[in-house]
């Protein structure tokens, strides 16, 4: 170990090494940017294609070699798309379901997370473990039974039939209602878990101090915990709204009528039952309209979405 390395570094060598190093560094940076920009272009291309196609007229869209910039910009496609797919109703339905389910879901999530984070009672840990265990089961497994459940909620419909009560029948028959789009998904174990972890980071002393001062649980929750957990709550809100926007299979199964159809399902339906050639520019315009709100939300609340998503791993 005592023999030291002999450094025979000459001036010329150093300069050469230096120059090489600089070249390598620049080359690497150029390569990095080039690669990233190409990938970014690939990633963004479908959006670009959607936008340019949505303002082309059918004849231009059908040119043998498609134009990368429309020769003539036609905004009429958007109007047509709006009417063809009945987007107005779809929007308001989706918004309604999104808002109501988000508010209710937030209330339940906050209260449940609070209980698991702050209160002590027998069976708490077992209960929480049971809750977490349900996260492992894929949602597709629930669909089969839930489909039956909502057709005859708690047997109310059968009961109503026997008692001759229309109100009970209506209460038991959730098909083609907004309820069926909202209630089954109100409890999200993952959000409860997320929020509970957040609540746990708030020092317990604050809670004890509040207790000493005679603050009620609810008031403490409202005045202390919710403000401190606000970023998580915002993330949950956005993800839940995105969920309403993107949900497809369940709404298609249980609320596929005009009055309750949600946007994704509506879009798919509108552009598969059309007769004759599919008018792709109009279809692209519809897709653009449907995509726009999510993009706007993303632009303004990017931070919360990315934070929420990186922790959840669930789409919607």
């Amino acid at each position, binding site marked *: 170990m005592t023999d030291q390395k002999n450094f025979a570094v000459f001036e010329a060598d150093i300069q050469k090494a230096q120059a090489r190093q600089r070249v390598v560094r620049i080359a690497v940076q150029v390569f990095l940017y080039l690669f990233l920009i190409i990938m970014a272009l690939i990633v963004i291309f479908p959006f670009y294609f959607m936008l340019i196609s949505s303002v082309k007229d059918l004849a231009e869209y059908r040119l043998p070699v498609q134009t990368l910039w429309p020769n003539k910009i036609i905004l009429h496609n958007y109007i047509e798309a709006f009417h063809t797919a009945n987007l107005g109703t779809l929007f308001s339905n989706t918004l309604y379901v999104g808002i109501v389910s988000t508010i209710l879901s937030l209330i339940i999530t906050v209260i449940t997370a609070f209980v698991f984070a702050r209160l002590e009672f027998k069976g708490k840990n077992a209960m929480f473990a049971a809750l977490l265990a349900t996260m492992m089961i894929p949602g597709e497994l629930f669909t089969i039974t839930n489909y039956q459940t909502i057709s*005859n909620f708690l047997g109310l419909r059968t009961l109503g039939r026997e008692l001759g009560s229309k109100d009970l029948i209506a209460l038991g028959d959730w098909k083609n209602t907004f*309820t069926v789009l909202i209630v089954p998904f109100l409890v999200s174990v993952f959000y409860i878990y997320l929020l509970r972890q957040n609540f746990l980071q708030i020092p317990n002393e604050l809670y004890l101090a509040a207790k000493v001062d005679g603050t009620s649980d609810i008031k403490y929750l409202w005045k202390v915990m919710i403000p401190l957990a606000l970023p998580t709550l915002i993330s949950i809100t956005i993800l839940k709204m995105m969920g309403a926007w993107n949900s497809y299979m369940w709404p298609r199964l249980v609320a596929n009528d005009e009055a309750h159809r949600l946007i994704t399902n509506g879009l798919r339906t509108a552009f598969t039952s059309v007769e004759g050639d599919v008018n792709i520019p109009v279809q692209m315009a519809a897709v653009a309209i449907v995509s726009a709100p999510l993009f706007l939300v993303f632009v303004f609340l990017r931070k919360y979405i990315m934070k929420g998503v990186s922790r959840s791993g669930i789409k919607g």
Partner: protein
Amino acid sequence: MKRKIISLLLAITLLALPLLTATSCDLLGGGKNNGDGELKEGQVKVVFYHTMGEALRTVLDKYIVEFNKLYPDIIIEHKQVGGYDDVREQIKTEITVGDQPNLAYCYPDHVAAYNIAYAVKPLDELISSTKVITRADGTTETLGLTQAQIDDFIDAFYAEGAVYGDGKMYTLPMSKSTEVLYYNKTFFDANGLVPPTTWDEMEVLCEKLLELDPDCIPFGYDSEGNFFITMCEQLGTPYTSATGDLFLFDNAENRAFVEKFRSWYEKGYFETGELSGVSYTSGLFTKAPAEEGNCYMCIGSSGGANHQKPKNDDGTYKFEVGITSIPQVDPSNPKVISQGPSLCIFDKADPAEVEATWLFAKFLTTNVDFQAEFSMTSGYMPVLESVKDHPVYAAELEAANGKEGLTLLTAKVALEQANAYYTSPAFNGSSTARDQVGLLMQQALPLTAEKDGDVAAKIKALFEDAIYKCKYDAGLQ
């Protein structure tokens, strides 16, 4: 104490939230049509699910008023439940919870499905009943059908009520459609062409049309499933047994006709609905001849005549449409499919309810005025022979043309081939068979020797696969 009460209230509110939203949502979302008011003593309510659009609902409402003049105590509550599949799915779920309607639009395979739960009332007893009912206007009628009434039904349509393999009658025909051949009359007349009556003529015609216009597709066929089944009927080859315990369609004759039409398809003679990507070929037919890929003929449902109108945006017509029967294998023994809804009555604990439903169903199917008006509005065929003699209807039919009057023209053509209608057997799984032969056509037609090698072997495999799936679904595999 006060805190305790508040907490309790809170809990109740939270528990009630889902239910509250259930009701509030319905209020906000328009909710369901649950009828108005409670029933009075002695009244019977009949719930009727159908697929009628607004125009037809108006006709229906008009005749419900008529019906109620005769039977004021039978309250009819009707509802449009989307399309035929929606009706089927809705009723299937409702059967499992015992909340099915009294009366519904149905196709034979729907009835077969409902009958897994023995939910549909066999009509034989009711038909043969001689019980005399006194109506509100003082007149009487027998509960059952009189022989005259039975005879007035177009035979094939009436026979459709008993295609379930057990000899029982389950449905009454409501309004019927069939497949007809729409053709570009303007073009045909200009070029001295006549629409084909046989498939052989069709083949010749296709060649000719391609000579005249190499960019065209001579004809379109909407439904692959109908295509297959109709060919079986026309050729007299087996399809399925009446009870569904045997799937017989995999035979040499059937493979041969599939192979024949495949070669047509390869030559570009025709296009089908699913293969064109949009379920129907009417979009191709209604193109002007100058447009790429237009069809000069289209075999589609007579009920879809409205979609076959080659209308410009300004309301003018690109060409005049002609309508005729679909090509046959043997013109002397023509076969055309009978489609369109029938009515089925669901069994209920209360015989009075069933009886009331029957009376209403009978009214709709045997009332000439209703049948005529319904047909004129929808373009569907009436199910009664005597409608042809209905003065207004007859006059309208007479005046029908290939432009605005297209719907009536189809009805006219459809009625003229009354002797040719057939209905394939219906059983639990008959819809699978239908789907499977449709899928078979969909996969077999685009095969080419160039791309897929041994086409015959491929077709054989497709047949075998379709049989396997039918059997699998029926639990036979």
